[in-house]
């Protein structure tokens, strides 16, 4: 029997046993996980059926049509996109059984404790210390840019276990209980007025060695699995023409003739053309991926998207003229989900500034393209010695 037919049966069985109309949301999600329909390419017993990844779309579509609840993936993106593949690849059987089910159902939210004030682009320079103490590790340090930290139960955490080694060595990867004593979460307000992120202060936090992922000192290798999955996620989905920010501005242009000037027109059409070109580039990238091509173009999409979003939103404030002087609301808020295009022009302008910083600065992405795609030589290294001796 083909994978696809088999999966079709499983979906029907799930729906027959748990009528979406009358079943409790969480109960349904747990049943779906147990039926192997959470992520079909995961192993049997861990929410999957060891089936080809692309069949997931079929499952999702059928369940959506039947009115089944989903696991609100935007709310638990870090768990799904980063923690889960890492736990799957490096976790012990016990860890996989413990963590994956509530992660997928959203019962337990995850966050990421990687970046530090002194280790941003140069993540491997991180200085949060973990010192062995019997069966535990004692962790102290400061992490930053942590979204969902205030609602998270677990965190994936990188800490330095040996400062005598060069920076990429001597790092170990842990799962940190966010409710443990010594974990303090403070909202980190941004220039938009919102606090999407948090600072997390770790003071003598005890983590059992059983919550280590991968070997001691192998944390960088483990983290690469996590980060690779982040990059893939950023590739983004198909959007229609005028999807995203350009559509908002084009709409304003059409509805508000009094705002038009020839100079703004020339700029708008140029932006429209860039947006459409980038959209087509995304279409082409997905066609390459589907055809199995390696598609180095992916590395550039985020870079181009950030620049475009900044240029469009900067243009929009100018276009709005007197309305551009205003802002909708400076109140400190902690949004669960960030919508770059939501709210007003001022918000879009300010928020877009982060696009070229978060998840890899544009400077770092250009380095990556130059070195990995174009094969240009690396800079002479200045950070080869022991971590403890690096200038900072």
């Amino acid at each position, binding site marked *: 029997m083909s994978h696809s037919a088999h999966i079709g049966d499983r979906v029907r069985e799930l729906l027959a046993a748990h009528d979406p109309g009358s079943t409790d949301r969480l109960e349904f999600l747990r049943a779906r996980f147990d039926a192997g329909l959470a992520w079909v390419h995961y192993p049997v017993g861990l929410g999957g059926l060891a089936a080809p990844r692309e069949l997931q779309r079929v499952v999702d579509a059928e369940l959506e049509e039947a009115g089944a609840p989903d696991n609100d993936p935007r709310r638990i993106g870090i768990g799904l996109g980063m923690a889960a593949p890492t736990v799957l690849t490096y976790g012990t059987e016990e860890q996989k059984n413990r963590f994956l089910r509530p992660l997928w159902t959203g019962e337990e939210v995850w966050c990421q404790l990687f*970046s530090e*004030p*002194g*280790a*941003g*682009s*140069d993540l491997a*320079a991180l200085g949060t210390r973990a010192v062995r103490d019997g069966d535990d590790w004692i962790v102290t340090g400061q992490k*930053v*840019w942590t979204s969902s930290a205030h609602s998270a139960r677990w965190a994936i955490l990188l800490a330095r276990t040996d400062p005598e080694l060069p920076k990429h060595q001597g790092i170990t990867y842990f799962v940190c209980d966010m409710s443990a004593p010594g974990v303090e979460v403070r909202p*980190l*307000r*941004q*220039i938009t*007025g919102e606090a999407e992120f948090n600072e997390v202060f770790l003071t003598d936090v005890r983590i059992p060695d059983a919550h280590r992922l991968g070997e001691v000192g192998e944390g960088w290798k483990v983290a690469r699995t996590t980060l690779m999955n982040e990059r893939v996620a950023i590739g983004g989905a198909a959007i229609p023409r005028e999807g995203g920010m350009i559509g908002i501005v084009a709409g304003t242009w059409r509805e508000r003739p009094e705002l038009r*000037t*020839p*100079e*703004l027109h020339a700029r708008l059409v140029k932006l429209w053309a860039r947006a459409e070109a980038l959209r087509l580039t995304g279409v082409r990238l997905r066609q390459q991926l589907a055809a199995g091509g390696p598609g180095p173009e992916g590395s550039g999409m985020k870079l181009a998207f950030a620049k475009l979003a*900044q240029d469009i939103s*900067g243009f929009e*404030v*100018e276009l709005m*003229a*007197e309305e*551009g*002087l*205003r*802002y*909708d*609301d*400076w109140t400190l808020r902690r949004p669960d989900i960030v919508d770059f295009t939501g709210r007003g022009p*001022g918000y879009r*302008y*300010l928020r877009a*500034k*982060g696009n*070229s*910083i*978060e998840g890899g*600065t*544009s*400077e770092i992405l*250009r380095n990556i393209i130059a070195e990995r795609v174009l094969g240009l030589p690396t*800079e002479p*290294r*200045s*950070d*080869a*010695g022991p971590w403890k001796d*690096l*200038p*900072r």
Partner: protein
Amino acid sequence: MNLLYTEIEEDLRASVRAVLTDHCPPSAVLARLESDSSYDASLWELLASLGALGLHVPEEHGGQGASLRETAVVLEELGRFTAPVPFLGSAVLATTALVACESDLVASLASGTTVGALAVPLTTAPGSPFPATVSVEDGLLTGRVTSVVDAGAASLLVVPVEGPALYAVRADSPGVTVTEVVSLDMTRRIADVSLASTPGVVIASGDRATAAVQSALRVGAGLLASEQVGIAEACLEQTVRYVKERHQFGRAIGSFQAIKHRLADLWLELVCARATARHAADVLATGSADADVAVALAQSECSELAVRAAEETVQLHGGIGMTWEHPAHLSLKRAKVGQLALGTPGEHRRTLGRLVHLPMDIPSMGQT
């Protein structure tokens, strides 16, 4: 034509900077954002005591009898610190309008005892039609003016009225409503002003009123360029400092060539923009016929530079530049709003094209 800073100007700068360094550090400006009082009244008094509020006001009207060149230097410093004082609204726009009318009222603005505001939308460009959204009947004013800069701090409103005429209106007069709006620039706020059968005193009418408003807008746009030079200069200095200190990959990030080249380009743009801003201030001070060209040039160049400098500052600070607690956003917001204030770069360039005889009229325009 002198595009340098004179010794007197450098002395003035030093005094203003000393006051601002002591009383207007970024931490204080940031803390004020959370408070109820948008404006720093004690800083305003200190600036008044330096004579900085009436530099280009004739001595017989209670000013310093200096020139717009000196006022421009003060603006550079205020821009550096994104100082939350109503200087643009009161000491530039309202003051210039009153000076043009030779009104006695200017004395109290020059001394700082009164804060004034010119009741026009902040986006009004020099050369715009007289902005008369207020009408007069039996000596009482009625109408509404949106987005008036520094109106929230003003006790004296200088109001263009249809006719045309220019009226002085006390902000505590009957029928006056000043509604602060949420401003993108948090250190320079705007407010909507409504008048309902409000008494006012006419201070100019006819061509004289028109000329006074035009003078204020021209001077405002020209001198705003100096503020923007100050913003850009502070952003560049702050960023250079940061990239020297910040280490990643075992090196100061300022040793990476891509960053060096970007900052070199920014420095060069600043050098050029400064020449245009000094030129505008000098030409405005000496009353040359070239003033409109100089203002359009300076405002279009400097407002774009300030935005670029502030944006580069955020980017090159990385995550920390995106945080509320870092002052980079104060400059960014001031710069971005400055792009809209008193004419966008596009509007100024359109004016420039007309002034220097580069016409745009094209026979085939209608088709497109």
